[in-house]
């Protein structure tokens, strides 16, 4: 029996002659005349076409120094395999909990592991990406204390700032900026102190900061934050070696989780990690998985505190989040489980080690100007090059090297020019000595 026959039986049952009669309620004047696009093709043709587009992209196989938020890290094959399981991949939000324990326990484990990593009490079951999670964190701080000023580092990336602005468009809060010392690369604590007031809702800090520096002053913010909440935007891999935000007084922690087993895929899907102290859980956005028991007393998991959410609370909800990044959260949970504590520590240590190697190689090759940041970079190595950086990315690309990004891509022109010819090269655990040597050799030729 062909599909059409089956449909005819259904139409007969409905006592409808023509399928088009199913749309008799759509007025003629809004009916579409046709679709101006090609007719469908076979799977084989589709795969060929998609492959030909993918080959128009360049990047895989090239020496890579691109980072600043997303990084080329080792991804265990098992991570892809696990999130490729169609029971995870093709399921919806676990509204029927008894039928969805797999996703629910996996997300509960994600929440647990992120708390372990950040040193916080609670992690929600994911946000869209790092920047939007930061926007939500700022809104959350406002809900907690209803104060009107947000303090941000002046070296926060432009894009991050725009996303924050988009998230506070409907709130009556003001953004204030505190300074960063362009010699050390550390935030200016005196400036923060002078700007914290009774109106301060939150102080946003970054670790590593916007200049890529492991910022010792960030650890001291808890001493001067007064009643403001401290929101720490962190690199999750750096937490393999650096002090966890829970130990330096953070109230809310935000991170981009792409580095935890997720492919860069031209920027998405990513993973927004949002962790916080217990006190704020009822003011928090997004979905949270909780543990309970079933009718027989067996451990079981459900989405909990749903009365904060849009489908119940509507315009009074804590956020409009419905879809989140559940699959990416499962990727992160499996990544952390597979590489383990030792693996994450090693990845972080190798990254830091490679950033030092990169800086010293550039320095000894005479590629750097005299004034360099004295602070220590984690993965994004900001250098002041001896020669102009305009078109440097293009020139490197022509010689098989992806990377580096001018600081001006992220900060206003004025700020970026405080460091002449400022340019980022990023490293990961995958960066090899010969990659750094190739970069140095290439810079010899082109600058």
């Amino acid at each position, binding site marked *: 029996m062909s599909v059409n026959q089956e449909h005819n039986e259904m139409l007969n049952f409905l006592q409808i002659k023509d399928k088009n009669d199913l749309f008799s309620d759509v007025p003629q004047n809004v009916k579409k005349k046709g679709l101006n696009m090609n007719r469908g093709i076979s799977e084989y043709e589709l795969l060929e076409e998609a492959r030909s587009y993918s080959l128009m992209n360049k990047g895989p196989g090239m020496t890579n120094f691109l980072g600043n938020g997303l990084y080329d890290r080792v991804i265990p094959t098992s991570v892809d395999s*696990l999130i490729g399981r169609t029971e995870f991949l093709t*399921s919806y939000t676990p509204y029927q909990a008894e039928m969805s324990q797999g996703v629910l326990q996996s997300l509960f484990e994600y929440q647990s592991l992120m708390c*372990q990593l950040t040193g916080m009490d609670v992690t929600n079951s994911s946000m869209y990406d790092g920047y*939007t999670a930061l926007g939500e964190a700022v809104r959350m701080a406002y809900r907690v204390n209803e104060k009107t000023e947000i303090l941000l580092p002046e070296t926060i990336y432009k894009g991050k700032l725009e996303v924050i602005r988009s998230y506070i468009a409907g709130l009556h809060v003001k953004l204030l900026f505190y300074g960063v010392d362009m010699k050390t690369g550390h935030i200016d604590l005196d400036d923060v102190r002078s700007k914290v007031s009774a109106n301060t809702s939150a102080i946003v800090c970054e670790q590593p900061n916007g200049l890529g520096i492991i910022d010792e002053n960030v650890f001291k913010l808890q001493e001067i934050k007064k009643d403001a909440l401290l929101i720490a935007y962190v690199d999750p891999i750096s937490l393999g070696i650096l002090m966890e935000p829970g130990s330096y007084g953070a109230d809310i922690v935000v991170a981009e989780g792409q580095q935890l087993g997720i492919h860069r895929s031209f920027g998405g899907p990513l993973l927004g990690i949002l962790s916080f102290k217990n006190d704020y859980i009822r003011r928090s956005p997004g979905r949270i998985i909780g543990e309970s028991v079933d*009718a027989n007393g067996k451990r079981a998991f459900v989405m909990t505190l749903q009365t904060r959410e849009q489908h119940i609370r509507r315009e009074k909800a804590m956020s409009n989040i419905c879809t989140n990044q559940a699959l990416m959260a499962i990727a992160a949970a499996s990544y952390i489980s597979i590489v383990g504590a030792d693996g994450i520590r090693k990845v972080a240590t190798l990254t830091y080690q490679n950033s030092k190697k990169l800086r010293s190689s550039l320095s000894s090759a005479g590629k750097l100007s005299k004034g360099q940041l004295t602070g220590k970079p984690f993965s994004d190595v900001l250098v002041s090059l001896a020669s102009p950086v305009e078109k440097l990315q293009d020139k490197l690309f022509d010689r098989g090297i*992806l990377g580096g990004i001018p600081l001006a891509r992220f900060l206003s022109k004025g700020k970026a020019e405080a460091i002449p010819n400022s340019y980022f090269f990023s490293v990961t655990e995958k960066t090899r000595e010969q990659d750094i040597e190739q970069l140095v050799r290439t810079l010899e030729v082109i600058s």
Partner: protein
Amino acid sequence: MSYRQASYDEPFIGELRSGTTYKIPGKVEPDALMDLPSGSLRKDLPLPEVAEYDVVRHFTRLSQMNYSVDLGMYPLGSCTMKFNPKFADRVSTFEGFSEIHPLQPERSVQGSLRVMYELQEYLKELSDMDAITLQPLAGAHGEYTGILIIRKYHEDRGELDKRTEIIIPDSAHGTNPASAAMGGFDVVEIPSGEKGTVDLEALKAALSERTAAFMITNPNTLGIFEDQITEIAKLVHEAGALLYYDGANFNAIMGVTSPGLMGFDIVHFNLHKTFATPHGGGGPGSGPVAVRGNLKDFLPVPTVGKEGDRYFLDYTHPKTIGQVSSYFGSFNMMLRAWSYITYHGSDGLKENTVNAVLNANYLARKLAGKFKIPYKALKKHELVLSTENTGKRALDLAKYLIDHGVHAPTVYFPLIVHEAMMIEPTESVSKADLDQYADILLKSLDEQETELKKMPRNLSVGRIDEVRAARDLKVRWKLE
């Protein structure tokens, strides 16, 4: 009935102690961290130490305790759980797509930009809108982006101070009022009329010089087409407000009519619904937003432009609301949606729409004798029934369904129908599946309430105590 879901007593991953086996390449030098002040370093890192094989088994076992659209019908109303084609999975793993950094030189990402450009054109054609952003990361994020555009539009006209209200029908998705409120607007809810559609008189009464926009979905959440849509658009525009289309239900009309033809100004799409990108147990999604030409300047940047054979990131929108997410949107989901549209084409997309509507109407008719199906008979993509007349609770019947190996519909939504079940079969189910689904649902009525309360019994766990989860809050395990 012989359905049984797998049921493991699976411990927390941190309780497994087989020891890490995974190898990270590279050699750590002994003094690598010596130059960092000890105050900057963490003292311990309490994370799992588990062999890779144990991790794989752990998550594989968990996956077996999870229903999915690859196992069968998943008719959550308004969620459009259609079959997710495997070719899209394959395409998404091509290295030339998956191993690309968003900040690479433009000329090195022409393939990705081409996919995005073509998807923009596809979605514009399908919606009859003039310009589009692919940046929003989910439907609700698209709604919020739309709200920001509404703000900017009225601000640009010097009217934002007085246009403080957004009107929303009582049948709307919860994200609509949540997104509007997030953008600083007051939400004005209007009741649905007797036919389940917008009550024009109520709309007229609500519209004023304070109205910034009216947000609706068409067909609405009752699965009913708003046939007075042209009149609605006229009223909204005469009041100086914008008309927003919630695209969650777009699968019902794609290729038959369009938001543009109906007079909408702003539209969001849910790529994970209409365009079959997998929803991953809750996400990722993707929520592109299309607008009429007069709103183009407000779109987030960048969009993707084309000049000759070259594709480029266009940052020129003069009155842009700025950037709304980290980069250009969820590229991998765009790629899958592009694959879906290219594969089905003009003929297949419309056929899918028609079949989705056929399936919903067929199921409605099968169930109509026993359940009350309020409002008019002709449905679009979904039907909403009430279990009230049967004396049974929708929740209990949902548990009966899942106990029989099919997913339950959305329950208790829309809020305007008591004991609601909202069923959206989509186009990718057979008549046999629909018949079986109807049979199970009808048979559930023969079950005694005391028996229903004991369900589910065939799943990895029985009925869960949700109250306890919220009362004795436990949201993580600790690993020492």
